[in-house]
Structures are given as C-alpha cells and as structure tokens.
C-alpha cells in the first residue's frame, strides 16, 4: 500500500480540534469567577448587628466563682458556700429570653466551674430516628431579630436535679453585641467571672456560616 502524507489529514484535523478545545478550556479558566468574587454583605467578626436582620445568639461560656453566695441561716448576710453539698461544682444550665419568651435552653454542664457550649452539634437520637441531618438542625442557638432597643436576657442556674439555684440573670442589649464572640461585663454579677455570647448573622452563604460556627 502506497503511503501518502495526505492520508494523515484525519489525524491533523483531530489534532486541530484538540488544540481548539485546549485553547477554549484555558480561555474559560482565565475568566474571573464572578460568583466567588462577589462582595458579601458585612458579616465579619467585630461588625455591629444590623437593624432588621436575623441572628443566631448563643452562650458559649459561663465561668462561675469557686463558691456561691448564699444568705446565712441567721440573718440576711451573704456568705460564701460550696456550690453543692457533696463539694462538687455546679451543674450549669442557661437559657435566653427574647421578647418575653424563652428562645433557647442550653444543655446542663455537670460539675463545671467553666461551662462551655458549642454552637453546633448533632442530636444523634434524632438523626437515627429521622435519618436526616440539616444545617438548621445542628445549630444550637437562639434565632432572634435585631430591632431598635431589643435585648436578650441570659439566665443561668445550677441544675442539681431537685432545685434550680439562680447563678445570674443579665439583660444584654443587642446594640452592645458585635458579630462573633462578645465578652459580657460581669461587674454586677457576684457569682460569675466570665460570660461569652456568640452572635452570628443568620442570612449568609452556608459555607461562611459553618465556618463562623465552627471557628467560635
């Protein structure tokens, strides 16, 4: 069979098509991704809450004094006492009240002087029964709307199973909160050393929301 270079025309054509595809794909990847580069509304840490926006609010840390303050048996004098009769630390639990309603109740933290809560967690029992998991279902926080003059009330107590002894009750004006972690002033709260509240914008890209929830 006589071989002629013209017989290789199909090979050349295919190479040409390949080169065109290669050029086009490189041209495509050079285009900026507008979706990724789009500016995101100010949701950064440290920014103030915006009026009319929804936020996730949750307590992430409460540290109590090593001893509680209680009235003495004889008289009204306050004196330091152990948190529990058996000498164990308090079982700290707290809730958040917004517009007169309890909107979040934390899990109790047994025998803790420093109780911490994660804003994200999975209810395994629920997961097993429903077989489903969604972002909303794993966020352990109150959802509130920031309105002029709005506030949330944090109530913490020692949950010893029989009685609930109040540790602190603090009214937190929403205007004082920033996005991210907020250390609440505890000067007027004799039984508490530290309170940290987390505030995160509810409406934002899911990936950024997860990042903020996990980083705090």
């Amino acid at each position, binding site marked *: 069979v006589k071989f002629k270079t*013209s017989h290789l025309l199909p090979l050349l*054509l*295919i190479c040409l*098509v*390949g080169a065109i*595809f290669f050029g086009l794909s490189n041209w495509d990847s050079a285009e900026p991704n507008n979706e990724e580069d789009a500016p995101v509304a100010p949701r950064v840490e440290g920014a103030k809450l915006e009026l009319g926006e929804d936020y996730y609010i949750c307590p992430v840390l409460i540290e109590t004094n090593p001893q509680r303050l209680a009235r003495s048996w004889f008289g009204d004098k306050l004196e330091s006492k152990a948190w529990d009769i058996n000498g164990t630390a308090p079982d700290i639990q707290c809730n958040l009240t917004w517009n007169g309603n309890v909107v979040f109740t934390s899990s109790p933290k047994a025998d803790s002087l420093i109780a911490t809560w994660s804003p994200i967690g999975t209810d395994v029992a629920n997961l097993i029964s429903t077989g489903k998991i969604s972002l909303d279902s794993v966020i352990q926080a109150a959802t509130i709307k920031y309105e002029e003059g709005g506030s949330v009330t944090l109530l913490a107590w020692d949950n010893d199973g029989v009685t609930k002894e109040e540790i602190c009750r603090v009214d937190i004006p929403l205007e004082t909160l920033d996005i991210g972690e907020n250390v609440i002033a505890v000067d007027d709260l004799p039984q508490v050393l530290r309170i940290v509240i987390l505030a995160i914008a509810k409406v934002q890209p899911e990936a950024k929301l997860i990042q903020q929830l996990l980083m705090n």
Partner: protein
Amino acid sequence: MDLPGLRVLTLVSTVLLGIGLFGPCMTIQPSFGEYHWLVEYFKPDTAKPTTYSIWSGILHLFRDGDVLVGIIVFVFSVVFPVWKLCVLWAGANWEESKPAGYGVLKLVANLGKVSMLDVFVVALLVLAIKGLPGGTKVLIGWGVWAFCGSILISMWVSMKLAHLYGKRGQ
C-alpha cells in the same frame, strides 16, 4: 453514495471524533447524602462536579497508575479510530478500481465491529442509570454523542467503501 460523498462523510466523522475525544464526555456530580454540606465545607474540591473528556480520562488513568487500562482505552478509543479514519480517507481518494489497499479497507470494515463503542456506551449507561452511593450522579456530556456519531458514520463509510471497491473489482 459516490466517492466525493464518502470523502465528505469521512471528514465529518473526523471532526466528530475530535469533538468526541476532547469534548465533555461525562460529568460526575458528587453527593454525600445528608452530609453533603459538611463535605462541601471541609473538602470543597471533593464536592465539586468534575467533567471528563475521553482524552482527559485517559490522562487520569495514566496519572493514577492504571497504565494497562489506560493503554487499552487509548488504543481502542484513539489510535484505532484515528487509524481507521486515515485508511478511509485514503480509500475515498484512491483512483484505481481495485487498489492495493483494498485488503486493509476490508480489514477496517471488519474491525469496526470490535471497536470500543459498544463497551463504552454500555459502561456509561450503567453508570448513568444505576448512579452511585450517596446520590452521586454521572451525567453524560455531548462529547459522547459526537464520539458515537463519528464511530457510526465511519462504520457506514468503511462498509460502503469495501462494497464499492468490491463491486469495481469484480
């Protein structure tokens, strides 16, 4: 159909083969079920859809160390179809009534039956229909249709040419 018509069809088949080899053949859309958002956060690249052409698929096979499979796919999906088209192009341009290359042409017409097309299409269909665990989907791209079109046209052209030269030689 006469020789000029077969030449045009061979060129069409060639262009379609080029498109089929380098165009999008399949897109894998990973899904991790209810945990997809979590994977999307921790491993965003894993959760992104990936599009492969036959060519990029072969390169991936070589890169991942599946050299033998890569060679088989390369030979049957690239080398053989391209060689076949070169023979068909030559056959559509012969001037003799029964050229010396007639035997090769007949061989091409017969070998067309064992091209990778059948295996390729069936494998893709199984993937596309059955899906993968966690809801991962395989979407067939238009490159597959170009590839199939090229193979089918070239099979038809090879049969026609073999038939044409066979008749001329009698």
